[in-house]
């Protein structure tokens, strides 16, 4: 049963990756922009880890992931009950991320590009239908110098959505970074900036930047697989001595909860139903006993 929604998560993720939407040019991403990169994404210059577009190569319990806007040879995966990260070789097709037995649902995936001058880390999470412990400890364990940690991750049946606020912890060498700037760029063209508080937490409000949906009829046998999604990336930069650190976290988000919904109509139909039930609450003047209703016996 726990695996049931994984296919939906996969489909949503794929739809987000495959979405071809008109994109505004994103803000130029700082110093790393000049690096050679294996893949690039037009909507942002920040490093990303996304599902590979090589369809048909991943299956149940496996997914192909690729890093873009950075030069990385490996992906590193952290599962909730795994003490050490797994190193996955990154090919042109991507790196094959596999669900390991009993290590937990939420995988943290990172890619790292390090030179003497700068360290670039991309990170994302992936949900597998896989029993195991909660990812709380895994998320808080130190993995890189500059870290951007979701607090918490959306659960399997939830996701980031427009207008919602989510907390992220910013750390450097395991120490929370106060007043640290954080940039959000979305596939829909928005760029927003946030700052962490004294404890290193930044509250990120996702922008309501989805355009009205165009009418597209699915071909017979094809499925829309849920609501629209778009990618986003959160990035933060920090200088320590002569080294520049850039860390990003990317995932997808959806339109706000009330897109294509009408609360007034919903309440109206609920009241209509209540009105239909209201006659049941009226006392009849003279009720006739049901013929097959048992009579309370006298002999008990």
């Amino acid at each position, binding site marked *: 049963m726990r695996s*049931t*929604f994984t296919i939906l998560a996969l489909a949503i993720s794929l739809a987000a990756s495959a979405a071809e939407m008109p994109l505004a040019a994103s803000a130029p991403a700082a110093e790393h922009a000049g690096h050679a990169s294996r893949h690039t994404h037009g909507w942002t210059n920040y490093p990303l880890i996304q599902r590979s577009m090589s369809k048909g190569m991943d299956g149940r319990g496996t997914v192909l992931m690729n890093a873009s806007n950075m030069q990385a040879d490996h992906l590193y995966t952290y599962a909730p009950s795994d003490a050490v990260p797994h190193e996955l070789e990154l090919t042109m097709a991507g790196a094959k991320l596999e669900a390991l037995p009993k290590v937990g649902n939420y995988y943290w995936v990172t890619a790292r590009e390090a030179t003497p001058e700068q360290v670039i880390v991309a990170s994302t999470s992936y949900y597998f239908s896989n029993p195991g412990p909660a990812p709380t400890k895994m998320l808080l364990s130190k993995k890189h110098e500059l870290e951007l940690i979701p607090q918490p991750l959306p659960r399997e049946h*939830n996701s980031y959505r427009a207008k919602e606020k989510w907390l992220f912890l910013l750390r450097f060498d395991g120490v929370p970074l106060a007043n640290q700037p954080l940039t959000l760029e979305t596939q829909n063209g928005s760029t927003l900036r946030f700052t962490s508080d004294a404890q290193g937490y930044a509250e990120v409000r996702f922008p309501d930047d989805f355009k009205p949906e165009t009418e597209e009829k699915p071909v017979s046998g094809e499925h829309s697989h849920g609501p629209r999604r778009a990618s986003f990336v959160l990035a933060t930069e920090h200088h320590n001595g002569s080294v520049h650190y850039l860390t990003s976290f990317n995932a997808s988000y959806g339109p706000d909860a009330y897109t294509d919904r009408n609360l007034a109509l919903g309440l109206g139909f609920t009241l209509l*139903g209540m009105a239909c039930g209201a006659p049941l609450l009226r006392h009849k003047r003279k009720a006739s006993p049901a013929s097959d*209703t*048992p009579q309370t*016996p006298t002999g008990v």
Partner: protein
Amino acid sequence: MLKKIFPTLGRFRFAIQLLMLLFTVYGSALIGHYAAEKVSNTLPALSCAFDKQNGAYCVLVPLQHQMHHRIGEALVQGQQVFNTVVLPLFFLLLSFFTFFVVLNKAFCGWICPLGTMQELLFRLGRRFNRPFHRLKETQAHKARPVKWLMLLVLVLGLPLLAGMGIAPDQVGDPFCQVCPSRLATTLLTADTEQIAVRTGHPINFALGALGNALFGFILIAALAARQPFCRICPLLSLNAAFQKLSPMRLSKQPHEKCEKCGICTKACPMDIHEIWKKSGHKAFNEDCTLCGRCAEYCPDDGVIQIKFFGLPLFKSSRDYYKARVKSETPEGMPKGKVIWLKPADTKLKAE
């Protein structure tokens, strides 16, 4: 000590129901953000995936989903049937029935949050002296096929057809779209998203409007009738389909006084007449939720029993009955202090 806190089976069940209502609606606040999800994967409670705070979700959600996205699509594609269709469905049903084997349909009577809410509303209706409507035997018989239709059409049929591309994609989860529990449990967490009708597609709009109207009707009907939605709930039919397989069951011995008595049927929140008129395995009807009220209100020793692997967990007794009716009538009318909205002469006839 325990006997003082829970002097009756009804009180014990009510405490379990309230506990499970809190758990299935506010689960993540009680046991943690991620832990609630773990529980949700093993407890097929009627609290759904649309809730953000719950500690459980409904087995009907993944069942529709698998029909839609696994079986329907795989039948069309005709590939990897075993790995992508049979195994996931098998494990889904296995996890459901592992839970089911222990509780049988007691899930409905003891755990389901919507069932608990309906019971609370009915108690409220008694407190405010609202009329009491029960289904006659013929009406109860006519209502029974509806829950099977709900299962076959809304949970299995339409999602399957949508998966095969025959029906529109918007009917991939039709039961969820009309399910009153989705609205009730999300509203209890102050989340109004689900009660807002979907307007993106006419089918979603129609189903949403129907679901909201049904929810409104259930809210009011539950004040005057016992468990109105349970009678058409597809989860009851899913449970009923396999109720004979579970070691937890209701048992009734024939007794000479039964014919003139029938208090068990009066006490039954599902208006099951078979518990009065039949005995043996026929008394354990498809609508039974194993709430145990029939056993509580049976005035004869050992006639009605709830058994687990043949061992009686609870059995009727004359002394228990005498104590029970002092606090509440079989129909659920409390005998304590009652807030009357009408003059006393409109008191429940059954009393």
